[in-house]
């Protein structure tokens, strides 16, 4: 497949837009569906496997406008229904079609705080784009209006032009909110609570902010600059930040309330310990959880081999077990770290893979080999205890299981050896035990995830939770959605407290 440069995309778009620009308001639905879907310009695969720069380069202005013109402005907005934070999608897209990018940004910001991040990492094909009328009309979900790319374009435009506005902050209420964890859920809670005039402190265990956005998602998918900008906005809003602070250890959870004077606490501590396969050989040298591998590479900068002190294992042939976004990130990162052969081993087929489609496509372009309907049975090691292969089994798809996906059934006698020197296990996380360990009264489910009510309130007074610590391993946007709900409940609770305090005084 020949690689198209951003300049080529730009030229094509310029020619196209000349045809449409005068009749942007008069296009009939049929004409709109005939507009060619705009592809995302990307770095050349042969170049990008040697750098950490972002792969997807973003639409050009012309591309964005053309793509926006594909939107039918439906009366029944399936896209909005399927958006976890209910962005008024057709309205923002209409602004893009009319070159009013500032207006578009305003519409998105009404519902979503972190569009530059969501535009990049949301699984749009199973959310807003899934039931898009254009995609339905063209009988191909991949031809739906590229809402995510447009969202990213708008957010990037806002950032590049320096037009990011600091949200208005209400007068100081004297109430204090503690946000534990600076991942997507925590960032949203911090912003939403601060806007109401509460004093907000973010407590982060790591030395850097962003949680999974920084330690988990590689820069080639979400550059650190973007996270930094979001955090700068929070700081400018007056949010206090404490890094190297483990709530439950540096201070006990209840001490935040009893001694620290916080009126509410939001726990967004994220997913916890990695799940392993429970197969023989998992403690051999050369077996890593994706969490460890990615944290070394991303947060600890192991990619910067001359500079970083944190080492990364010198893998040449590597197998990544799993089929989600984390598996894609680990596989593509290992390629960039110098692995010659990278396999993704997944026991179902490509259709069932939970990873974002774009990531799978990019991974394939980068030479990652997918071994579908196969799974590791046993990891093999040499006399020094280092990985030197995996014994795999082949599978076929049987009847659907409780998740609705067809259950993979192993084919007896189909064992074969995959020649690798490293294995990355990317099959999910269990919950982080720190909070529940030190607070036995906190109600958790059998997987250790914190149980919350519809307001994200935990079983403990004044304490709310959201994101992966509640959901198990989920997505950035779902975590943000939970954060938004929690912030609303916290703000309501604090407003009621203030009201009753004032009543007493009067």
């Amino acid at each position, binding site marked *: 497949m020949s690689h198209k440069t951003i300049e080529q995309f730009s030229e094509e778009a310029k020619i196209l837009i000349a045809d449409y620009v005068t009749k942007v308001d008069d296009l009939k639905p049929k004409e709109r569906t005939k507009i060619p879907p705009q592809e995302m310009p990307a770095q050349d695969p042969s170049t990008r496997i040697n750098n950490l720069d972002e792969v997807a380069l973003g639409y050009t202005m012309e591309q964005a406008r053309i793509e926006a013109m594909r939107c039918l402005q439906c009366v029944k907005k399936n896209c909005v229904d399927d958006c976890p934070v209910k962005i008024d999608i057709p309205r923002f897209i209409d602004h893009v079609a009319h070159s009013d990018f500032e207006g578009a940004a305003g519409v998105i910001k009404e519902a979503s705080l972190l569009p530059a991040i969501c535009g990049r990492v949301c699984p749009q094909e199973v959310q807003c784009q899934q039931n898009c009328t254009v995609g339905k009309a063209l009988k191909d979900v991949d031809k739906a209006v590229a809402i995510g790319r447009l969202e990213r374009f708008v957010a990037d435009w806002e950032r590049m032009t320096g037009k990011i506005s600091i949200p208005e902050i209400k007068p100081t209420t004297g109430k204090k909110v503690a946000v534990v964890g600076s991942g997507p859920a925590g960032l949203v809670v911090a912003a939403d609570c601060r806007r109401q005039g509460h004093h907000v402190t973010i407590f982060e265990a790591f*030395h850097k902010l962003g949680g999974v956005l920084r330690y988990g998602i590689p820069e080639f998918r979400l550059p650190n600059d973007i996270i930094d900008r979001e955090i700068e906005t929070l700081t400018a809003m007056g949010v206090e930040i404490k*890094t190297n602070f483990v709530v439950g*250890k540096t201070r006990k959870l209840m001490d935040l309330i009893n001694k620290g004077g916080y009126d509410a606490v939001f726990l967004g501590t994220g997913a916890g310990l990695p799940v392993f396969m429970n197969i023989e050989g998992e403690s051999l040298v050369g077996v890593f959880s994706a969490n*460890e591998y990615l*944290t070394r590479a991303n947060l*600890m900068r192991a990619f910067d081999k001359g500079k970083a002190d944190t080492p990364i294992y010198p893998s040449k042939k590597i197998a990544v077990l799993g089929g989600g976004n984390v598996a894609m990130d680990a596989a593509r990162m290992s390629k960039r770290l110098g692995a010659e052969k990278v396999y993704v081993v997944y026991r179902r087929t490509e259709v069932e893979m939970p990873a974002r489609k774009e990531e799978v496509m990019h991974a394939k372009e980068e030479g990652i080999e997918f071994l579908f309907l196969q799974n590791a049975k046993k990891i093999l090691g040499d006399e020094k205890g280092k990985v030197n292969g995996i014994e795999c089994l082949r599978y076929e798809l049987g009847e659907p299981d409780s998740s609705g996906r067809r259950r993979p059934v192993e084919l007896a006698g189909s064992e074969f050896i995959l020649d690798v020197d490293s294995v990355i296990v990317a099959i999910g996380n269990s919950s*982080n035990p720190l909070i529940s360990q030190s607070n036995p009264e906190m109600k958790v489910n059998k997987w250790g995830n914190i149980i919350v009510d519809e307001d994200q309130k935990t079983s403990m007074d004044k304490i709310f939770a959201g994101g992966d610590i509640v959901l198990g391993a989920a997505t950035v946007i779902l975590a943000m959605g939970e954060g938004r709900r929690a912030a609303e409940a916290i703000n309501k609770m604090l407003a009621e407290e203030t009201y009753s305090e004032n009543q007493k005084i009067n």
Partner: protein
Amino acid sequence: MNKILFKKQLSKDVYLMRIAAPMIAEERAAGQFIILQVDEDYGERIPLTIADADIKEGSITIIYQVVGKSTLVLSKMEVGEELPALVGPLGTATHIEKFGTVVCVGGGIGVAPLHPIAQALKNAGNKVIAIIGARNKELIILENEMNAIADEFIVCTDDGSYGRKGLVTEPLKEICEREEKPNMVIAIGPPLMMKFCSETTRPYEVFTQVSLNTIMVDGTGMCGGCRVNVGNQVKFVCVDGPEFDGHKVDFDNMINRLNSYKEIERDAHNCYLDALVDEKEAEL
């Protein structure tokens, strides 16, 4: 930021530092550790056990051995300088109660984390027998401090340059053979030493607790790098430990995993040493 308040070289490669960390000083208990970095952007996260704490001064004490580039850089930092990142207290605190007679065995730098545990056990009314050992006299640390706590005190060196000549497992075995067996053994030191202490006590069925220092990145229950096999279960040193039943720990596997990055780290260390030499030469 965490300022270095005091620094002292205890032996050739072993340093003691008191570092400002008021909240950690208040919350920490014997057996817990911290993670620090000497550079916020590119430094690695080094787990170190808290050897002592002073709530009044708002400080914690760490004792560490220079084993690679990061600890070498740390050893070159001076009083008044600040560490860019320090987090804790991490891990589960040692369970302290009156067990009866407890043998506290410390090997090399392992005496540093052992000291607060021995103190806590003593305070809880236990009879404390302390055995500390090192390769040679030079490497013995905290002798007076341990002696002050112990009801019975034994020093060993491998080369016989000080105290009894031999390994710590020899007096440990003798104590286990006494008519009144000890109620518990706590062994902290190099992995091999902890392994052999556990093997020594196994036939006598004396519960032996070890404190593991594995590869670790976040230290808060996220990365899974610190996993060890204990019994037939996978345990995580950062949240389930660092202390485990030595009779159940798969030491061989742990030692093997500890060596995962040995070659890379040795190269990095040598590279850094070469650079230091170059700098010195340039200065001359």
